[in-house]
């Protein structure tokens, strides 16, 4: 029904600031898609360009089978929910929800009917005559969602929809939003800087940096197989270990120690090549006795994460983080050996931060 196609899209601000840089992306119909990245990466600009609030400098935006690049926002058949919800303080909840319908010229009964229906779906019945200032943060968010739903748009755009909620409510809202999106089946793009939020909610996501997409994929792909050190570093509640190493024959030299080099990448590296070894703390096991091909270190810090503990080992001048199950933390100061779970080690080129098996002229960065 409404697939979003972005083709060679750029948004350049005066002073040659490229907020969105020659970006091409397809979001299939009905997908829940996240734009993820640190602040200033262009994710919000991209969302606003899709909405039409920013005019694309070049390239095109297609929604469904229409090219909307030059259409005003009101004609694009999309609804946006802002971070601050943008409810009109002088209107009641029902007036807020039906305002877009009023602008579209619906008769009073029709728009009231649709507003009440949308309100009911989001359990706002009983609050319809209140003003936004008389509602809690979570209720305000639902009013904003109801206003978006009531217009039956082709596309939903959410700009940091959860960041104004407190931590507990945010978790509830995640589940709620995901269910809502699934029920409605409307293509949805949302912006977030919180990788955990993107992993939890999105069907697929684009990780952005400096106006470009560094990786597009499902939560699993992005988490388990980040294609460059930027994504590797950005995704994950506990940061991925990125250790400088160099290739020594069919093994790796990490902090002066000999560590196994995964077989599948051996043909992509050359002897003496400088690489970065990436492995998540969750994919490392720790042992208190010597393990052949493991990395030896001294336990420096133990952080409790609730069901697990994050143990930081120091090997020479490198730090390696490992998660260990609750109650199995090694004592501080003890020697320990870490080995990776097979198939979970990623080897990146030192010079451009891309995976060693990626084509060299990736022209990114």
């Amino acid at each position, binding site marked *: 029904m409404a697939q979003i196609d972005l083709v060679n899209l750029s948004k350049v601000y005066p002073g040659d600031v490229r907020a969105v840089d020659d970006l091409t992306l397809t979001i299939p119909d009905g997908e829940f898609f996240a734009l993820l990245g640190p602040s200033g990466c262009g994710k919000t600009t991209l969302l606003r360009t899709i*909405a*039409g*609030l920013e005019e694309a400098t070049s390239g095109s935006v297609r929604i469904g089978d229409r090219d909307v690049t030059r259409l*005003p*926002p*009101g*004609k694009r058949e*999309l*609804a*946006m929910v*802002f*971070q*601050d*919800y*943008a*409810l*009109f*303080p*002088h209107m009641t909840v029902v007036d807020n929800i039906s*305002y*877009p319908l009023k*602008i*579209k010229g619906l008769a009073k009964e029709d728009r009231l009917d649709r507003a009440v229906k949308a309100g009911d779906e989001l359990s706002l019945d009983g609050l319809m005559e209140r003003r936004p200032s008389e509602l809690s943060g979570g209720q305000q968010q639902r009013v904003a969602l109801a206003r978006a739903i009531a*217009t039956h748009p082709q596309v939903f755009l959410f700009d940091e929809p959860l960041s104004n909620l407190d931590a507990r409510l945010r978790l509830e809202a995640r589940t709620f939003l995901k269910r809502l999106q699934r029920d409605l089946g409307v293509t949805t793009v949302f912006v977030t800087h919180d990788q955990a939020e993107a992993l939890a909610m999105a069907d697929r996501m684009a990780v952005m940096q400096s106006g470009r997409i560094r990786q597009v994929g499902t939560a699993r792909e992005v988490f388990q197989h980040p294609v460059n050190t930027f994504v590797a570093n950005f995704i994950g509640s506990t940061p991925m270990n990125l250790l400088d190493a160099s290739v020594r024959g069919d093994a790796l030299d990490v902090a002066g120690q000999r560590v196994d080099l995964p077989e599948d990448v051996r043909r992509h590296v050359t002897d003496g090549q400088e690489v970065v070894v990436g492995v998540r703390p969750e994919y490392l096991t720790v042992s208190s006795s010597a393990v052949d091909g493991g990395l030896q270190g001294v336990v420096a810090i133990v952080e409790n994460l609730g069901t697990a503990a994050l143990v930081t080992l120091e090997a020479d001048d490198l730090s390696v983080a490992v998660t260990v199950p609750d109650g199995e933390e090694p004592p501080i100061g003890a020697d320990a050996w870490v080995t990776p779970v097979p198939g979970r080690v990623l080897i990146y080129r030192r010079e451009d931060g891309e995976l060693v098996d990626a084509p060299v002229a990736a022209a990114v960065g």
Partner: protein
Amino acid sequence: MAQTTSPATEATAPGEGVGADGIDGPDGTGKGGRTPSDSASGGETDVVGLGKWRASAFVAPALILVSIFLVFPALWTIYIGITNYRLTGIAARAPEFVGFDNYVRAVGDADFLNSLYLTLIFVLFSAVIGQNVLGFGLAWRLQNVQGWVRGLVQSLVLLAWILPSSIVAFLWIALLDRDSGTLNALLGTPGLAWLIEYPMVSIIVFNIWRGTAFSMLLYSAALASVPPSQLETATLVGASRWQTLRDIVFPHVRGHVLTNTLLISLWTFNDFTPFLITAGGPNDRTEILPVYIYNTAISGGQMGYGAAVSLIMLLINLIIALFYIRLLRERK
């Protein structure tokens, strides 16, 4: 507050005299430097520890000035308003008490009522409509305009506001002059005496030009306080500029409109500058109340009557103010 700090004070302060010097002094290490004077005046409970008398001494100069230049003249006006005090003649030497005669006379005085009518016209068209609409229009239009254009327009509008009255009056006389006026040169209407043919229109336009800056600044600030996301939401649902203005912007700035209208109404009501252009003429056709009072009290010498009219004018001001404040309160 003083009670909680005083035990510490007693422990650290060696004597009472250090109070004022404590902060500057070499031993002002911050530990006891700020508090010593607290205990100096015994039972006093003010934060700084000045005591009632010393505190009063600080306020006294301002109070004395206000009394001399504000309270006393106000009371004096009320007093002479009930006498037949004149600038010259017998009544200047020994004014007689006449009760409410002056007020009774004013209410029945055609000249006074004419002035009142002219003033209302002047306020309605130059302030309530003119400055308000033009100020809002400028603020609205300049919102999304490039920086330097906005700066230029704002500076020009502000200039009209901050120039001294005597200078702008001269400029307008030069502009509207019959024989060599700029306006006649521009319009190609030589010999048209604007100030005689259209005196009221002239001072209304003059006052709009002169006072719009305030409304523009106030509305610029008010418009900046409308959350951008609400405007963008309106844009996204396809609202036109006018619908956005009516449904989103105006409800946000409604309170500002009332405040602004109150202020500019009062200022215009009391404005004396038109006198410098037309002196109330021709034939009293621009004799708004402040000018009328000046002409009767100072030029005409009828101080008692002028004072009475002044008081009436003050009461009208009060009524206007109460009316707006009432409206403002109803909105909330």
